[in-house]
């Protein structure tokens, strides 16, 4: 039977408690087995006492805890009889080291603070690398899972590096493959959940075909998973009938209070009754942690639709013993066979496999490794900096060391003593650093919860603590060993001038190293900051001020026909327009920066159909009500915007963006031309206007040709995509103030319509930049720390030199050396090693920044401006850091100087 602290307490102390548990492993196994739970219980009760509240309290608590731990662990091990004499010496060394720290608090606080910041930053970044990149996906054998994409090379008539496959392609692949266990399909969408006494809410849903759960290798925790019998009806572009559903663990807990009798209950989704057949396990989230509910995604395997109907996602799992190379070879052969048998895929278009983990995290992998590299460099600078401090202190401790040697301490014993001191410093810094990392992570995650994929998995766990301990040991060794050897060697004999020179050389070397590393970090950060500046200055193509947007879905049971959707949207627009404070309202199928949209081909009247291999005309199609351009602040460059007269009965019209004009009408004006969308029974449409480019996918994505259609006319010939769309509302005031009014207006038309993803237009832009902003901010911060530490190093070496050379300076001045000459002599002391470091750092950066290529937007990794401006600035700052302490040297009077020794 063991003692345990109240569990809420333990939860609150999470991180600190885990760290304490790690620390008490220092005790022998016998003692731990008997007292661990009691130690933990003691820790929990003690930690929450009022006297240990706040930062000062926390520090004082940990100081006491560590002191107790250090003192008792050695004694306990000694009692256990294990390596008795050695433990006692270690105990002695630790005690001595603690007294040293107390004796020189200025030095100790500086050293611990520098290391804590560096170790804390490394720990925080490593926890992100661990959570996003290293942590395996939550499925069995996740490394065998691959996304299936299609690629269109220009000879196919299109040009897309990565595109979603069509169900027909995937069904063919799934039927033919032997290298894969199977290929499953999925698609993400939203479903409206209504229940009595509850506001209608939109649930994030994922449709899975009958193969997908087998591919992922997952089972329901309660109930059963989808089988072929659940795949009723046929999924269409806009509607998924969900006769049955599996709840995510989160929804089951939040909405149903973990009801164990959940299977067989029903819920209302999109106005129709759905039976709950089970609950997924707690750790399962697919494809992202946002998913609330899983529904069947029926695919007609006999007639899975047109080959070119792209728009679903697919994942395959490698069969046992099959390598990815073999699977790729098989797929290449299949691509060739299909081309021969069905004429599809055409030349330059093929299916390919991409590792699932990589496709989920995308650029974040490179960005995080870059941050990790940067932060490890900062850690190195920190360690070098403290080495420099210790070296300087070694000189002042020379007499103490000589005394100890005279009393019989061997060299090895002295080195061990000094290494123990370094370790005590490093351990204190690590404790503080891990605390800082925890606070920092909480802050970053609170502000940017979605800036990076898989960010929900970022936490300081045992792996991360293991890394911190490694960082601790590594830095202790780096900054402790050199000064320790130096100090003990120097003390073997009387101090000689040769020792002094050697020590000075070592310090100069350390300063050069610090500066060189900081140049690499600062230059890399400079490039990334420049890239981010480019990104943030990009014209999104619309005015984001004073606009609020929200998504809306008009469900099929309530709005079964196109006509009813048209009437519904029109009434909503009118009602919203009547809301006080609103100066413009529009509805669109795709807001800016919201992701890809449908991408149909179109023909231009009077032009021959393109030959195979020739560029086909296709454009992202966006539907909008009259007033959209005006409400969103999009400039009309030629012709006109949509007008209220562009109704279902009026002649059909269309508007293109500038990129479409540049691509398909280079040097011409398309206004007055007629185009036809490649869909059944599509009419010829007159081009009536050209508008500026609006970024639909992401700020850093290439702008695609875009085709805008009036909402009312689109209903006639294209599939009814517009029952899903978004409203944008313009106001001269604060747009967030409009939300209650908008809610009331929507409820007045249909109380069962939830407002989804309510965001200001400014937020749309900001979200697109959240990842780059976070990475840039962090890297900039690290560069700042690196620079500061390097400057402290330069300042330190000069300042130390001034203090030691007071007498020499006095004599020089007495002999007639001018103040300026003395000043520059001293400035050189710091500037010379700094410039050596600058040179080495520049050369290194020239090679290293190449690795940033993929992360930079419109900036060359060897951007001349960055490579010239930053080093000049750094040189200036290095001279300045040398100049400040050098001024002291010039104030020395000869009399003072001669008195100084």
């Amino acid at each position: 039977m063991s003692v345990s602290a109240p569990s809420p307490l333990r939860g609150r102390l999470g991180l600190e408690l885990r760290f304490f548990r790690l620390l008490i492993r220092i005790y022998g196994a016998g003692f731990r087995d008997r007292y661990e739970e009691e130690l933990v219980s003691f820790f929990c009760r003690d930690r929450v006492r009022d006297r240990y509240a706040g930062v000062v309290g926390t520090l004082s608590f940990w100081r006491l805890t560590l002191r107790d731990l250090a003192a008792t662990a050695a004694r306990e091990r000694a009692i256990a009889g294990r390596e008795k004499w050695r433990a006692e010496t270690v105990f002695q060394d630790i005690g001595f080291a603690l007294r040293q720290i107390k004796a020189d608090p200025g030095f100790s606080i500086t050293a611990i603070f520098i290391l804590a910041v560096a170790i804390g930053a490394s720990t925080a970044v490593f926890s992100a690398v661990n959570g996003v990149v290293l942590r395996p996906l939550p499925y069995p054998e996740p490394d065998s899972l691959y996304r299936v994409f299609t690629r269109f090379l220009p000879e196919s008539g299109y040009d897309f590096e990565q595109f979603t496959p069509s169900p027909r392609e995937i069904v063919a692949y799934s039927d033919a493959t032997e290298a894969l266990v199977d290929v499953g399909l999925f698609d993400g969408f939203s479903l409206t959940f209504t229940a009595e006494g509850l506001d209608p809410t939109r649930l994030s849903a994922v449709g899975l075909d009958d193969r997908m759960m087998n591919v992922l290798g997952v089972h329901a925790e309660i109930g059963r998973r989808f089988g072929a019998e659940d795949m009723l009806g046929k999924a269409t572009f806009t509607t998924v009938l969900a006769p049955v559903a599996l709840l995510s663990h989160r929804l089951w807990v939040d909405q149903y209070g973990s009801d164990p009798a959940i299977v067989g209950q029903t819920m209302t989704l999109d106005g129709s009754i759905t039976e709950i057949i089970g609950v997924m396990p707690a750790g399962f989230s697919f494809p992202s942690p946002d998913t609330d509910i899983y529904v069947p995604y029926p695919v007609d395997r006999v007639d899975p639709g047109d080959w070119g109907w792209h728009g679903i996602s697919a994942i395959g799992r490698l069969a046992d013993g099959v390598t990815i190379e073999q699977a790729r070879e098989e797929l290449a052969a299949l691509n060739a066979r299909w081309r021969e048998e069905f004429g599809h895929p055409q030349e330059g278009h093929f299916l390919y496999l991409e590792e699932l983990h990589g496709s989920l995290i995308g650029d974040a992998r490179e960005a995080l490794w870059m941050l990790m590299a940067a932060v490890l460099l900062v850690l190195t600078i920190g360690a070098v900096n403290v080495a420099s401090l210790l070296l300087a202190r070694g000189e002042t401790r020379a007499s103490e060391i000589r005394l100890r040697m005279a009393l019989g301490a061997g060299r090895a014993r002295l080195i061990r003593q000094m290494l123990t001191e370094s370790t005590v410093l490093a351990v204190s810094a690590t404790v503080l650093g891990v605390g800082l990392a925890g606070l920092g992570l909480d802050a970053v995650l609170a502000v940017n919860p979605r800036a990076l994929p898989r960010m929900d998995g970022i936490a300081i766990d045992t792996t991360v603590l293991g890394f911190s301990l490694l960082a601790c040991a590594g830095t202790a060794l780096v900054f402790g060993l050199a000064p320790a050897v130096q100090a003990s060697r120097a003390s073997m004999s009387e101090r000689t001038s040769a020792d002094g020179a050697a020590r000075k050389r070592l310090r100069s070397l350390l300063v050069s190293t610090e500066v060189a590393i900081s140049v690499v970090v600062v230059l890399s950060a400079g490039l990334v900051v420049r890239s981010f500046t480019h990104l943030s200055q990009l014209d999104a193509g619309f005015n984001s001020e004073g606009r609020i947007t929200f998504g809306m879905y008009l469900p099929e049971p309530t709005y079964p026909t196109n006509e009813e959707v048209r009437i519904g949207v029109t009434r909503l627009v009118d009602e919203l327009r009547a809301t006080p404070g609103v100066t413009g309202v529009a509805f669109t199928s795709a807001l800016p920066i919201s992701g890809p949209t449908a991408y149909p081909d179109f023909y231009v009247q009077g032009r021959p159909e393109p030959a195979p291999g020739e560029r086909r005309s296709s454009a992202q199609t966006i539907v909008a009500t009259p007033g959209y351009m005006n409400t969103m602040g999009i400039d009309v460059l030629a012709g006109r915007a949509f007008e209220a007269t562009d109704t279902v009965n009026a002649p059909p019209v269309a508007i293109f963006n500038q990129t479409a004009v540049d691509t398909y009408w280079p040097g011409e004006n398309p206004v007055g031309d007629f185009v036809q969308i490649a869909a059944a029974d599509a009419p010829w449409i007159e081009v009536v206007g050209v508008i500026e480019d609006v970024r639909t996918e992401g700020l850093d994505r290439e702008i695609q040709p875009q085709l805008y259609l009036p909402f009312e006319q689109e209903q006639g010939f294209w599939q009814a995509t517009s029952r899903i769309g978004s409203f944008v509302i313009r106001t001269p005031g604060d747009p967030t103030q409009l939300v209650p009014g908008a809610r009331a207006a929507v409820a007045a038309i249909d109380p069962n319509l939830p407002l989804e993803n309510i965001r200001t237009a400014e937020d749309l832009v900001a979200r697109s930049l959240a990842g780059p902003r976070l990475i840039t901010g962090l890297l900039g911060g690290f560069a700042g720390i690196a620079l500061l530490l390097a400057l402290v190093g330069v300042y330190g070496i000069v300042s130390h030199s001034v203090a030691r050379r007071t007498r020499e300076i006095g004599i020089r001045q007495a002999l007639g050396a001018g103040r300026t000459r003395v000043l520059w002599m001293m400035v050189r002391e710091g500037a010379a090693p700094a410039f050596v470091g600058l040179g080495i750092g520049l050369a290194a950066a020239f090679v290293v920044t190449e690795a940033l290529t993929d992360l930079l937007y419109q900036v060359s990794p060897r951007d001349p401006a960055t490579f010239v401006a930053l080093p000049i600035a750094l040189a200036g700052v290095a001279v300045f850091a040398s100049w400040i302490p050098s001024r002291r040297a010039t104030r020395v009077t000869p009399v003072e100087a001669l008195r100084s020794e």
Partner: protein
Amino acid sequence: MTPRPQADGLGPTPSSLTLVTVQILVSLGRGPMHGYGIKLDIEERTDGAMTLGSGTLYQAMQRLEKQGLVQSSVAQEPGGRRGRVYELEPLGRDVLERELELMQRTVAFAAAGSESPA
């Protein structure tokens, strides 16, 4: 080195007890307590002058249990949770009494200046 209970039942010689050990015995002299309770009790009695860390406390408890001065058992705490509670063995009580007596004599001796002890 480790003091052992002696055949005469008088336990370790008083001088082998540390101040921490004495304080723990004094606390347990007031009745059975759990580990953290002992810490709080000592803090209260010494006005915070003696603050035990967990390692120090349980190391002492381990020693005292081995010496047979203290025994522990699992019991229901006031909060309803189950926890380990320590109490004095008869031997521990004897040792404590002897130690306190010795202390009193020491204090009296010190208070009387350089006069010889009574």
